[in-house]
């Protein structure tokens, strides 16, 4: 047996887990998420019992305020204060809603929680319902997560059977029921007023705030919306006490945060760390550094609402406020790591393309502004950018940010603004030198040519070319039509005699000088 113990490392010995602080994710992977008994055996529903039998709603709210918990969906608004607004709102019918419409590309924190520990979210929601005086709750979840939906349904049924949902829970006289609403593929429904419109059966278009949902929300009733991870933290705060929660993290951002670590790093997956941990620790410690020993270029944090941070920001302790200062935002917690072979202009274009197609079209700054910005970025990545484009991009970005109706539009320019702030040189390389430093933008890549001294006329490259721009016949020298070559590189590895070279190489290597001279001769002629 001793040998086994030596051979199988424990979680704590692995770099990926060593410096994680798993609080919300504590049960994930350790309990059977489809068994309510497993959840109860790991102290589940104890917090609910404590709340319903020993605490008044205001005391619950005070405890959450005291903990310093801030919304984990991205905005970082203090949860206790949000609950207070809904509690103070007058009305006999109130709703509590869980936002599980996780739509950011590169984010899967909520999915991990919903699939790995669904009861913790239910418990957080029931406690929240009791605190604000709601007897009904909705979980709005994207339809792309069928396993999470199945497990939530199972969890709700199990909780109802045990009397943890329904009438007179724990004999306290408190009634609470929960329903699941599956989304239908609209990113904007992650915005709280859009989400409520969608539950009501309308198009998921956001409405101006005020009125805030706390006063006039779902079906015009006072409503409170929190994110999945926020709810998962509630039972922990009640069970362990606000004081012990506040010991974790930084002064203004207490507790932990789950990040979805992806991109060009060695270890990908969910990483939960104390607030205030540096980006360097997450990427190079937990993430194990960049794949294939390449250079780190940037980390994209917070999805389409966030920004790209460069090397010099790696030692920034992550919390809500430090990220906003740096021009990014916590967002939901997606971290996409990029190496030297990424193009920051292309990344900005990618996110803008995403928000542009997901813009609901209701307000003009977002609908038209993001479209114009996308057109400019498309031009730049195609090598047709002009020098005044950068100023125009900045002006448009500021307007869209200031004037848009909802969070989607207000944050849509962030990926552009942050890449302009930290990687302006890449934009300039595209515009002034027709170069893409990351080697991504197809139109700006130097094409290929064939060394006529080496070519044996085997036709392999002709077969490999996806756009048929190589001319030649068997046993005759082949030639690439330089005008039309899109530099995809498909031909290069096929050549048995290494006769295919990228054009920008020829001036650097003496053995290709004959190709260069030929070029010049052509120019003279």
């Amino acid at each position: 047996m001793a040998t086994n113990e030596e051979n199988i490392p424990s979680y704590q010995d692995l770099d990926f887990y060593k410096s994680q602080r798993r609080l919300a994710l504590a049960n994930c992977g350790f309990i059977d998420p489809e068994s309510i008994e497993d959840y109860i055996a790991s102290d589940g529903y104890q917090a609910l019992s404590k709340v319903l039998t020993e605490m008044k709603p205001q005391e619950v709210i005070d405890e959450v305020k005291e903990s310093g918990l801030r919304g984990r969906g991205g905005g970082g608004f203090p949860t206790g204060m949000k609950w207070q607004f809904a509690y103070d709102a007058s009305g006999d019918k109130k709703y509590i809603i869980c936002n599980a419409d996780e739509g950011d590309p590169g984010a899967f924190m909520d999915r991990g929680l919903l699939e790995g520990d669904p009861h913790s979210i239910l418990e957080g929601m029931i406690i929240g319902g009791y605190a604000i005086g709601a007897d009904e709750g909705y979980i709005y979840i994207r339809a792309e997560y069928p396993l999470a939906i199945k497990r939530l349904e199972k969890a709700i049924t199990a909780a109802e059977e045990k009397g943890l949902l329904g009438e007179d829970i724990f004999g306290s006289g408190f009634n609470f029921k929960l329903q699941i609403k599956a989304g239908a593929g609209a990113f904007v429904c992650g915005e709280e007023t859009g989400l409520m419109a969608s539950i009501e059966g309308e198009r998921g278009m956001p409405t101006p705030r005020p009125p805030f949902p706390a006063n006039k929300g779902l079906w015009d009733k006072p409503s409170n919306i929190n994110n999945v991870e926020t709810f998962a933290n509630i039972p922990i705060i009640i069970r362990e006490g606000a004081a012990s929660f506040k010991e974790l993290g930084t002064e203004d951002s207490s507790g932990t945060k789950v990040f979805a670590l992806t991109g060009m790093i060695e270890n990908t997956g969910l990483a939960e760390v104390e607030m205030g941990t540096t980006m360097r620790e997450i990427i190079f410690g937990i993430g194990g550094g960049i794949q294939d020993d390449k250079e780190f270029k940037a980390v994209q944090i917070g999805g389409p609402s966030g920004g790209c941070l460069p090397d010099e920001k790696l030692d920034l302790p992550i919390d809500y406020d430090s990220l906003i200062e740096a021009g990014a935002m916590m967002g939901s917690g997606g971290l996409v790591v990029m190496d030297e072979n990424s193009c920051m202009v292309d990344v900005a274009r990618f996110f803008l393309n995403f928000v542009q197609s997901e813009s609901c079209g209701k307000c003009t700054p977002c609908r038209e502004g993001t479209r114009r910005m996308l057109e400019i970025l498309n031009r730049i990545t195609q090598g047709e950018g002009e020098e005044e484009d950068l100023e125009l991009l900045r002006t448009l970005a500021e307007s869209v940010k200031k004037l848009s109706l909802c969070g989607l539009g207000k944050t849509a320019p962030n990926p552009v603004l942050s890449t302009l702030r930290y990687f302006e040189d890449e934009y300039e390389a595209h515009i002034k030198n027709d170069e893409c430093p990351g080697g991504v933008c197809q139109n700006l890549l130097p094409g290929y040519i064939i060394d006529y001294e080496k070519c044996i006329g085997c036709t392999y490259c002709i077969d490999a070319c996806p756009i048929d721009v190589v001319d030649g016949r068997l046993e005759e020298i082949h030639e690439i039509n330089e005008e039309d070559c899109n530099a995809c590189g498909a031909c290069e590895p096929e050549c048995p005699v290494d006769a295919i070279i990228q054009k920008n190489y020829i001036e650097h290597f003496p053995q290709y000088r004959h190709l260069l001279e030929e070029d010049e001769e052509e120019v003279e002629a």
Partner: protein
Amino acid sequence: MCSQQCDCVEEELDLTLVKEILEGYEKKQKNLIPILQETQAEYGYLPQEVLKEVADYLGISFSQVYGVATFYSQFYLEPRGEYIIRVCMGTACHVRGAAKILDELEGELGIEDGGTTDDLLFTIESVACIGACGLAPVIMVNDDTHGRLTPEDVPEILAQYGE
């Protein structure tokens, strides 16, 4: 579907299915999206007659139902094939000739990207990236993944799903 005289026999749409689905729901607008989801699962898409039926049942206008059905990307107003062919157009697939695979599919089936064959067997849909870059170029037919393709492989793959 046919606007002009042709040989195909227009199939009468069976509205009993949607009526059965509607009976399971209260007449409230909040049930609109769940109803559309269940109806689409049954019909494969949302025909106009069905949307009208839903509007009548819920007591809301047809334009409201149409507005919702066109707002969300997971609702389809045109019939879709039994087999949805997703052609990956991601970076890796692009470099390895995804365009040729798409050309071949379009040629074989006689439809364009986004279109559906008249016999409602196949729909072609180009997608941004299906995350199987190691197998590039790659397509998915419903849940099956076919990778490392050449245009010559296409007819054989389609034959697997034909009658």
